[in-house]
């Protein structure tokens, strides 16, 4: 999980661990990229507005490594404009969730992404639509 907002990191790490997942956390983009390359996680939860490089850049760089091309990336962001969402999905995000979101909804998405066959994962630039923004609605 790459997130620079301490409170969100704390809460999400807690619920994810309580749900049985092992969570590595990073607070900057570069730190996150190193962790991804080193730990090869099953899923990345990524904020877009990070203190060094943007989440978009993290996404693009990770996707350049063929061995990481199929890794699900769930973008968690306050950027809710349609063009921003389109860009996020285009540079390699698997899902695009806008803040605020409900923890229960996030857990459901994480579970689904980890269970889904890898062929469902969107490849960069494929034009496949992700879920609607702010999918935390109900």
């Amino acid at each position, binding site marked *: 999980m790459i997130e620079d907002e301490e409170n969100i990191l704390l809460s999400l790490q807690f619920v994810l661990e309580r749900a049985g997942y092992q969570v590595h956390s990073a607070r900057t983009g570069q730190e996150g990229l190193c962790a991804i390359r080193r730990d090869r996680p099953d899923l990345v939860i990524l904020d877009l507005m990070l203190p060094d490089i943007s989440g978009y850049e993290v996404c693009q760089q990770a996707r350049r490594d063929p061995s990481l091309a199929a890794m699900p990336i769930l973008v968690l962001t306050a950027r809710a404009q349609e063009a921003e969402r*389109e860009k996020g999905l285009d*540079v390699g995000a698997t899902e695009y969730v806008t803040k605020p979101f409900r923890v229960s909804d996030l857990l459901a998405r994480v579970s689904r992404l980890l269970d889904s066959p890898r062929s469902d994962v969107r490849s960069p*630039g494929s034009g496949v639509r992700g879920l609607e923004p702010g999918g935390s609605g109900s």
Partner: protein
Amino acid sequence: MTLPSARGQARDSRPFAPLEGKPAASGTYQRTLRLTLVAVAALPLAVATVATFVMLRQARLDLEQVAAISLMVSLGILGAAVSLAFGAARALGGPIQDLCEGVSMIIGPNRAHRLALPEEADLADLARGVNELAERADTTAEDLERRLSSATHELVVQRQMLTSVLFALADGVVVCNRDLNLVLSNAAARRMLSLPSRPLRRGESIFSYLNPAMLRPLVESLGAATGGSQQGQRLERGTLALPGGATVQVNATLAVNDQGQAHYVFVLRDVTQQVSVDRLRGQFLDASVRRLRSQATSLLSAAEILRAYDDLAEPQRRSFLDVLQRDAERLADELDAIHAQAVGTLAPSRTGDDVRVSQLAEWAAAELGPALAARGQRISTGGEPLIVRGDRLALLQVTRRLLELAVARAPQRANLSLRWRRVSASLLELAIELPRLEVEQDGLAEEQLFDIPLEDGQPGRSVRDVVREHHGELWVRGGPKGCALVLSLPASQATTPPDPGRDGDAVGQQVLALLSRGGFYEPGPRAEDRSERLAALAAHPEARLADLSYVVFDLETTGLEPGCDEVVSIGAVRVRGGRVIPEDHLHSLVNPGRRIPRLSTKIHGITDELVAGQPALDDVLPRFIEFVGRSVLVAHLAAFDLAFLNSRLGTMGRPAIRQAAVLDTLLLSCSLFPSWGGYNVEEIAARFGLAVVDRHTALGDALTTAEILIRLLEVLQRRGIETLGPALELQSGDLIRKLVGAVRAELSW
């Protein structure tokens, strides 16, 4: 008597109509002369009579004989004197009468007439003097005429410029005199104020259409504040709610001209939507803030209670936790609602132009032509008709900068493409595709590629800033076959820009008519030679007719023979998005370097004097080619106009414009409507119900032809011809050749 014309001008063949009193004066002169001569002859007569009488008396003749002989001698001498007087008077008086008649001619019907010099030296001097005076009077009169004509021309040009400005303004303009009677209004003002579509009569009171209570306070405070001394510097502003529900903001000022006449100038801006959105936004924000305050209060209280009281019973603890959960959820919902409203109905109105994405792409591609050529790269463009609303110039610059980036970072001799498409109902993307993006290994993140200034050497607004201002995004899309620089922008639902209101607008027609005599187009200097592009235009037969821009042009010439005759005027106007862009025009008189035959002047009204100080075709042609740019050329009977242009392009060493690449409204009309009897501009215009403005002026004819083109493009689309290639093909074929033959015969060309 035949009088030679002093300056070789043709003699006035009209019968001479003598001015009243002139011949009478001449007759009096002759009578006086005759009487004087008779009087002078009477003296020697008396002396001779007395002398005869004395001599005869000395000869001792009787008195009766002497008297009889003296009387006979006297009568003989008197007869001789009278004959002499009449003869002399005739000899002296004839040339003087001629002189009198000549002077009457000069001050009468024929200013160019000059006096013939009589043989008598004194009279010849007089005639010379009169001729010189006439010459000087002539020069003065011509000078006066020239100055008058120059001043009138300046006045006309200034009036045209003013009218063009008023026409182009989205703001309404109303000018009234001090009694608030209308002097001038533009189309925008009439739309806003729901004034009749006909031009208001000069002097009609604005209050016939507007409640006086609305404008009066503004006018009175303006009058009171300026007191007539600070006119033009004081601006009064007010907002009027009009009866139809619209709201306009009015800026009023008082202008006083050189003659001390005062006029109120009202500039009106339609702020209906802005006012309504502002009101809704205010109401929505108030309500949201109230709800957020109450939710925050509830959250804070619950959290504090949970922390402060360790001894809460389990049911109580749970109920406060429920409060936390519920209010946090309501907070999240509230944020979603605010976001939806912020990007939806309450979004800040994006002012700006409706810009065709194809225009952004094609302009950028044209600008980068030399850079592409230098690197041996090629570019193709294409996409569906799409509109983005925003700052046209900034978006053009952004597209150019991105393409520049692609050109610089793509490999040499690479094939680039510029494609645009609609991604969703409200989003479009413009992608510059290239085989590989060469990024220096300097740790530069791809994201930072776009932090380039909008203009070279002008730090401040960057490409990314402009994109953000337009709620768009920029990124590099990587893919197996290459990569793309992607620009994503909110898309307008429309696919063509809205018509700003040329709904049979009479002022618009007037402006178009006025423009046809204007010629204010001054393109910036550009060294690049675009004539090759002109020649290569037909290389894009797949281009959609609806997406293309057209330049419709017309020439006026000294005659009908391209080899011998020359161009005296060129007019061109651009058509884009199914409408004429009146402000986008070129109009220039051309000095043909030879005399213009009177017969031609009769047709187009262009005289030798008018073209005397004008540029030659060699100077105008590069401007024309520059103006055409990548637009498709269109003309009526294009072969005629092309023959003139190509003959000169040839001598300038430039490639000719291929007729096969030029749309011809005559050929298209023939092909689409073979049953029509005639195909000249008036006939086709009449068929389409179009008004013909300023026939036989280059710009007037170009404008009429442009309107014809728009109708023909509609017909083509209805008949399923949507691209340039098939439209050009329609122009060839036997049927067309026959028809052109018929038309040429009709035109005697």
